[in-house]
């Protein structure tokens, strides 16, 4: 019924709901802030981890995940609130785009909305809030770009910067105690890519056992496969043929073929023909004169034996990624037909040594001294698969950030420095702007300042005092100061060597403000009736 007592006809479907105005806004604020609060405690070097337990029958205690990575936490959560979904979405995008800062972006968006809610309570129209935020965002972005520095890609300083950035990224993760070691490892891996941004070429192999310290970067390239029985286990100066071809039995691909015979003899004949066809194929492969044959698909015993007889080492079942990496590392071409042995020089890959090695309890194949040295392998060791998974995610974050840095080259100081500087810029701007927007600009600054505040709180320090001191230091013109999270003081970031990648900060700022604006503009939420599912 409406206000005057008319019975309103039902317009939407039965289970659909519609919230308007304040109710809608309240709903989105509550949802978004709740999600941000949830991941807030993982922020910073003293942030805590979360256990994620899958739902569903029979899997309660299996496959649990322990993680500190915002994107992983948010991705695995099932939320119903639409505004919360937007936050999860930006965190995912951040992960895809730059790989790190996934928690920061969700927390920043949440804090912006928290400030926005206060402004709405003061009866400031959402559109005015948005107008202010837009000014603030541009100011903050300008300041962020101004304070960033750039070094030449080949210089020692740049290399040092990379190590520092990797250290900063890793410091909030499980492996923080070994961060120097891993930072070095990641930087070496990324520098080997020589500017290419294809993370596929860095393979991460996880093997339970040993301690985290036993992890290492292998110069060569490791394939997690075994050499077929009966072949040589060590090949020097190998010529490698990488293939993607059927070596089980060669199906006839012409549609509608069918074998129809009228006597046993014929069967034998066809069998022989089939065998001969395979032999023919093997012969053709042999003309290339490889010493190692890697195939993506299964190899049946017969061709395998033929190849082994000719002294060729056979590796079967290399999955698609593995095969691409072998091809990239050794400079081989991936073959599917074998009719041009004269091109053998061009298509064969080359490496100095192939040998079977044991890591932990698993046998693997190691390629050393490859022709094109782009691909490399990081072998991770650790006490349990959960630890390994988390280390893998951390290393992935670090690698992503490093690759982004190599592309973008600009860096900023870490330890909350960039956020505080941006906040200061917003506050200066707020003094100059006329109208209600000024409140929103100030609020934007406060939201930015919340990031270092939360980092302090997570470390158990007195955030109010520290952040105030921080502000004063910046005011004095000490532009390299930042939070020293080991001592709980304000330290000098250039001495502590805490640096961060500009692109990560930029993306976080943009995505968070865009998402906050999107949520702020909503004054009506319509939820359609959920689709009825047939129970299986």
């Amino acid at each position, binding site marked *: 019924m409406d206000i005057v007592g008319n019975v309103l006809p039902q*317009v939407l*479907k039965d289970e659909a709901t519609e919230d308007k105005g304040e109710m809608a806004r309240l709903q989105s604020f509550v949802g978004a802030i709740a999600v941000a609060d949830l991941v807030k405690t993982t922020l910073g070097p003293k942030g805590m981890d979360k256990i994620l337990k899958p739902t569903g029958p029979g899997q309660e205690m299996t496959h649990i995940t322990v993680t500190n990575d915002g994107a992983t936490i948010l991705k695995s959560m099932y939320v119903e609130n639409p505004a919360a979904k937007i936050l999860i979405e930006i965190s995912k995008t951040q992960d895809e785009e730059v790989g790190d800062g996934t928690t920061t972006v969700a927390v920043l968006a949440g804090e912006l909305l928290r400030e926005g809610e206060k402004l709405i309570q003061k009866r400031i129209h959402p559109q005015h809030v948005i107008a202010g935020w837009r000014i603030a965002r541009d100011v903050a972005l300008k300041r962020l770009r101004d304070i960033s520095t750039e070094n030449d890609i080949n210089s020692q300083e740049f290399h040092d910067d990379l190590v520092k950035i990797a250290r900063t990224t890793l410091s909030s993760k499980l492996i923080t105690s070994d961060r120097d070691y891993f930072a070095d490892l990641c930087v070496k891996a990324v520098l080997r890519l020589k500017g290419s941004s294809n993370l596929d070429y860095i393979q991460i192999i996880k093997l339970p056992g040993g301690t985290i310290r036993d992890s290492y970067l292998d110069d060569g390239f490791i394939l997690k496969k075994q050499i077929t029985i009966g072949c040589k286990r060590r090949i020097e100066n190998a010529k490698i043929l990488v293939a*993607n071809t059927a070596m089980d039995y060669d199906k006839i691909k012409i549609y509608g073929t069918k074998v129809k015979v009228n006597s046993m003899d014929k069967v034998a004949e066809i069998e022989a023909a*089939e065998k001969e066809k395979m032999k023919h194929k093997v012969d053709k492969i042999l003309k290339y004169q490889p010493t190692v044959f890697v195939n993506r698909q299964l190899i049946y015993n017969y061709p395998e034996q033929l190849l082994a007889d000719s002294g060729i080492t056979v590796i079967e079942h290399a999955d698609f990624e593995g095969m691409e990496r072998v091809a990239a590392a050794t400079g081989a071409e991936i073959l599917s037909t074998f009719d041009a042995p004269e091109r053998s020089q061009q298509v064969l890959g080359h490496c100095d040594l192939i040998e079977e090695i044991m890591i932990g309890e698993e046998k693997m194949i190691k390629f050393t001294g490859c022709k094109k040295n782009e691909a490399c392998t990081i072998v991770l060791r650790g006490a349990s698969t959960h630890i390994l998974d988390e280390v893998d995610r951390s290393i992935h974050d670090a690698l992503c950030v490093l690759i982004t840095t190599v592309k973008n080259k600009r860096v900023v100081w870490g330890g909350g420095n960039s956020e505080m500087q941006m906040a200061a810029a917003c506050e200066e701007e707020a003094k100059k702007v006329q109208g209600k927007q000024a409140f929103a600009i100030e609020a934007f600054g406060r939201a930015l300042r919340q990031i270092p505040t939360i980092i302090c709180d997570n470390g158990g320090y007195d955030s109010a005092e520290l952040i105030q001191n921080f502000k004063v230091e910046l005011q004095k013109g000490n532009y390299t100061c930042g939070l020293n999270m080991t001592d709980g003081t304000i330290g000098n970031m250039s001495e502590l060597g805490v640096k961060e990648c500009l692109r990560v900060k930029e993306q976080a700022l943009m*995505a968070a403000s865009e998402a906050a604006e*999107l949520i702020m503009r909503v004054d009506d939420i319509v939820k*359609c009736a959920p689709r009825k599912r047939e129970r299986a």
Partner: protein
Amino acid sequence: MSLAFDDYGRPYIILRDQGQKKRMKGLEAYKSNILAAKAVANTLSSSLGPKGMDKMLVSPDGDVSVTNDGATIVEKMEIQHPTAKLLVELSQSQDAEIGDGTTGVVVLAGKLLEQALTLLDKGIHPLKISDGFDRACDVAIKHLETISEEIDIQANEHEALIQAACTALGSKVVSKRKRELGKIAVTAVLDVADLARRDVNLDLIKIQTKTGGSVEDTRLISGILIDKDMSHPQMPKEVNDARICLLTCPFEPPKPKTKHNINISSAEDYKKLYQQEQQYFVDMVKLVKASGANIALCQWGFDDEANHLLLQNELPAVRWVSGTDVELIAMATGARIIPRFQEITPEKLGKAGCVKEVQFGTSNERMLVIENCQCTKAVTILIRGGSQMIVDEAKRSIHDAICVIRNLIKDNRIVYGGGSAELACAIQVLQYADEVSSVEQYAIRSFADALEGIPCCLADNCGLNPITSVAQAKSRQLKENNPRIGIDCMELGTTDMKEQRIYETLSSKKQQIQLATQVVKMILKIDDVIAPDDY
């Protein structure tokens, strides 16, 4: 449903399952219909104008979209009420015909229905009301044409077009970057427009979305972007001076459509078949190569062996290109789509300056760009944004802007926005009302009131006092005889929309008023609703 009984107490059965159906008739039906339609219009009314708000819509599967676009909102609300559904269709037909103003048309229909409700209460017959609305509509349209102005779309680097695009984008979440996006949209449309015929084929503008970055990173690519990569990882990533062979047949052994069996009855047959099969691939590649093509785009898949042969013959290829992309590429590069390998000839190849792979972000996703096409007729707008919702909304907004520009190229007459055109029409309709001597006079007058509802709603959304600001604007229009006085939504200090440069197309405004009137007439004609009970 009420039952009628004969003298012996037996019910008359008129409809099948009569007892289980609901029926509303007469005034009750009118009112119920109007209220339902108004409920939809009310939801949309807060989205109107530059300071309008967005709606968050959760689909039955739990997907979230946030939008300001009227047609999208009503579509995704999944409305079930039959009369309210008419408004959904109203918004969609505005979208299909004009592309912009989809919110305005629903709001106007809502205002008209509101007026109709009071007239019904006065006891005026619905048909009289709709007649009156019809006559008023004609007057309004005529007046719109007299106050419209022709603009020079070429002048000042297409400034007028950019302004019109900005007006369309002003109400959306991307309004912060409206100027940049407006420029992109204008350039895109002008690139593909046929100015001599005053026609634009919007199919030639491809809108590709990709999450990541921010809305600023949205850019125009003079060429076609396809979300595919080379079929073999070791094919060259860049082909300059490309001669493109566009295939719609797979690099696979043929599959005749007639049902057939090939029987292998001897080893001889087996070998022959094998050789033949090998020959197929060699021939296919040879045919493509012989035509002089240096890149092949195929709508279908490749066999592994064929794929390698392509690599071996240094012929980069792309597989699984979607059908629409194939057509687009054909138009842009002047290629002919080739359905059989035997029909490849050098003349059928398309030409482009460069085909290359580009990469985004860390997620290792690659796309192909075809640049400098022979007949640069197709362009791509690549939209970026922080999340899927933003990207989707930006796509809808740019579509609106593109439609506005297209309409201006077709018909370069504009009216001014900010509610000024509606106000001017309202004044005209009101004058006309006094000349009518029949009952319709009341309906015509109400029509004017409904038109005034639009500026009222605009002012309301912008946080201004609706009654004062509309009254002020109206009196100034009358006093200064200036139909360009509207509501100062952006608080720029002037109410002259010409100074604010808020341009709307005449065709859109006309269509809005006509469509809204038609739907209202239709709703007013319904006096009986029969529906199953559980509906």
